[in-house]
């Protein structure tokens, strides 16, 4: 088990910069999730850590060792690939035993280690099968088993659940979390699914265009997103954004509506006076209407989900989504008045899109 650190990590293909100077310290036993939209450089970063991709600049340490130039086999990491990369001609047992055999672990030790890992993952009865005789979920587990038996310093996962159906994904996600709690090894996990990131991570690293947008615990990135991008990326349904201006301690939305800024940003209200801002409101943070703390808009679509109801309504030129109690069923076309708690809204600078609070 080991810590990992990236210092000014860079990757370019020719003139094309893909990873633009990542600085990140990952503690021993930490579960870190790299999340971001497609093409933002998550896999590239992970593969540089694994040694499967050369680095163009900066430094990677595993524990105290600088591993910049070490081949993968000397980095003592294990990786679970998106397509699992199980050896098709080897049985499950042989797949799991391969890395141990290569490293010269005595046969007497291989067997109990595989048995233990297989039991942990519930694949004990599959050991004699070939990968082609397994279901997607079983293959996924075997791929994890192959990584576990190694007992590496660090586990790397590159979108390990993306080939599973929704139900199985939830199930395996829980298993991965349980696994981390059981063995405690440092895990670096890549995904583009924010739900996976939120549920699994000790800390989330949000990447955008090869740069770190924010690093923080799931609570931190949810409660205080550092930018419009993070606000919109984390949380489902996504955060609502509306443009407005601060005027006399109130937010004047472009559509004409206004809400008080009282309480929260009081001290800054004067500093913000006259500034163009982007207001972020999470759908789940709308509440009962209250004088001066409410927005009104025409209801466009109502989606009952059973557990709650999503209401899409117009505010000026933008459409906002509110997640409300399931009993609330306004009719499309109605004018809806809905409460906003000023302490739960997020303010971003309109020009830089960075958080203002």
């Amino acid at each position, binding site marked *: 088990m080991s810590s990992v650190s990236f210092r000014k990590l860079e990757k370019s293909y020719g003139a094309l910069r893909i990873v633009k100077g990542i600085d990140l310290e990952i503690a021993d036993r930490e579960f870190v999730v790299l999340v971001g939209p497609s093409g933002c450089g998550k896999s590239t970063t992970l593969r540089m850590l*694994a*040694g*499967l991709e050369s680095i163009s600049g900066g430094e990677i340490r595993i524990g105290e060792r600088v591993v910049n130039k070490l*081949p*993968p*086999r000397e980095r003592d*990491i*294990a*990786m679970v*690939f998106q*397509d699992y*990369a*199980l*050896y*098709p*001609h080897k049985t499950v047992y042989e797949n799991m035993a*391969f*890395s141990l055999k*290569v*490293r010269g672990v005595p046969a007497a030790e291989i067997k109990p280690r595989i048995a233990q890992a297989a039991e942990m993952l519930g694949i004990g009865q599959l050991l004699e099968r070939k990968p082609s005789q397994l279901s997607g979920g079983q293959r996924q587990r075997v791929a994890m088993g*192959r990584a576990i038996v*190694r007992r590496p310093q660090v586990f790397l996962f590159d979108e390990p659940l993306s080939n599973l159906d929704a139900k199985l994904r939830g199930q395996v996600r829980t298993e991965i979390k349980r696994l981390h709690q059981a063995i405690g090894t440092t895990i670096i996990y890549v995904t583009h699914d924010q739900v996976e990131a939120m549920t699994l991570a000790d800390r989330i690293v949000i990447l955008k265009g090869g740069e770190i947008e924010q690093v923080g615990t799931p609570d931190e990135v949810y409660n205080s997103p550092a930018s419009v991008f993070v606000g919109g990326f984390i949380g489902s349904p996504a955060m609502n954004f509306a443009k407005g201006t601060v005027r006399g301690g109130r937010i004047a939305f472009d559509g004409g509506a206004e809400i008080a800024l009282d309480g929260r940003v009081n001290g800054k209200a004067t500093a913000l006076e006259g500034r163009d801002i982007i207001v972020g409101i999470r759908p789940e943070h709308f509440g009962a209407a209250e004088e001066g703390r409410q927005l009104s808009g025409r209801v466009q679509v109502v989606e009952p989900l059973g557990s709650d109801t999503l209401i899409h309504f117009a505010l000026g030129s933008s459409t906002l989504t509110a997640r409300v109690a399931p009993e609330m069923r306004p009719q499309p076309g109605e004018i809806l008045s809905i409460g906003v708690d000023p302490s739960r809204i997020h303010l971003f600078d309109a020009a830089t899109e960075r958080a203002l609070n």
Partner: protein
Amino acid sequence: MATASETSVVPTHNESATKWWTRFLDPSERTLAVLLLAPAALLLALIIVYPVCRLVWTSFQNLSLTSGVPAEFAGLENYRLMLDDPVFWETTWNTVLITLITVPGALFVGLAMALMANLPFKTKWPVRLSLLIPWALPLSFAGLIFAWFFHSEYGVVNDVLRRLGFEGVIWFNSANWAFAAICLTIIWKTSSFMALIILAGLQTIPRSLYEAAEVDGAGRMRQFFEITLPLLKPAIVVALIFRTITALQTFDIPFTMTRGGPGTSTATLAMYIHQNTVDFLDLGYGSALAVVMFALSMCVTAVYLRMIRAKG
């Protein structure tokens, strides 16, 4: 009752007569299957079964166009003659030897070429093209080129040998050297075909398997023997089947390079068949020889097929 059944019999008979045709207009599943398979089966019978049967039949006949005697059934006479025919044994042995040398030879050279061609070259087409060229050349053309290469006076091989300080070899005067020259030529000509099939096989192996192996700690050698080779096995077996069958039928290259000489020391079974049927017009004996070659090919194919099945 009797009259009733009698009256019913007559129309039924008529019906069944017309039904013979209507059955094809609205065929049952079974009839349809037979109908659909019939053209292919007929074609196969015409172009494979008939010639093979005809060949076997001819091999039982005393049919020599030069003897002036009409063909007559000779039983196993042709085959008995073969047993006492030293040229038959020599050419068969040459054929087997060529197979045993050039098939593994082409496999190794082809494998090496395929591995090289599979390296991440920036521009792939010159590599692929150079693989294709030897394959696309006609066999007899390759034979003619290499006959020149191995020419004792003007050949490039001897020239290189002399420059390196060795003595030149009069390749086609010695049975062993001539045989070696033929084998080298065949390997050159056929390894590109092996390489093409193996290259196709190599490209079906996902890159992530090598990455997984690398993370697992396997070096290059280990990756080759534990991943590449096992996953190439189906491609290799297919290539071996084709290559072995064509090796058993080797004709063009020794024919153009040595005409089987010196003596019959580099003649193959196929050349001996050609000689008997085309030069001597002894169709009976030639057919018997061809049956032997056919049997050899079938045996080899059966062995390979068993190899594939044992794997699956």
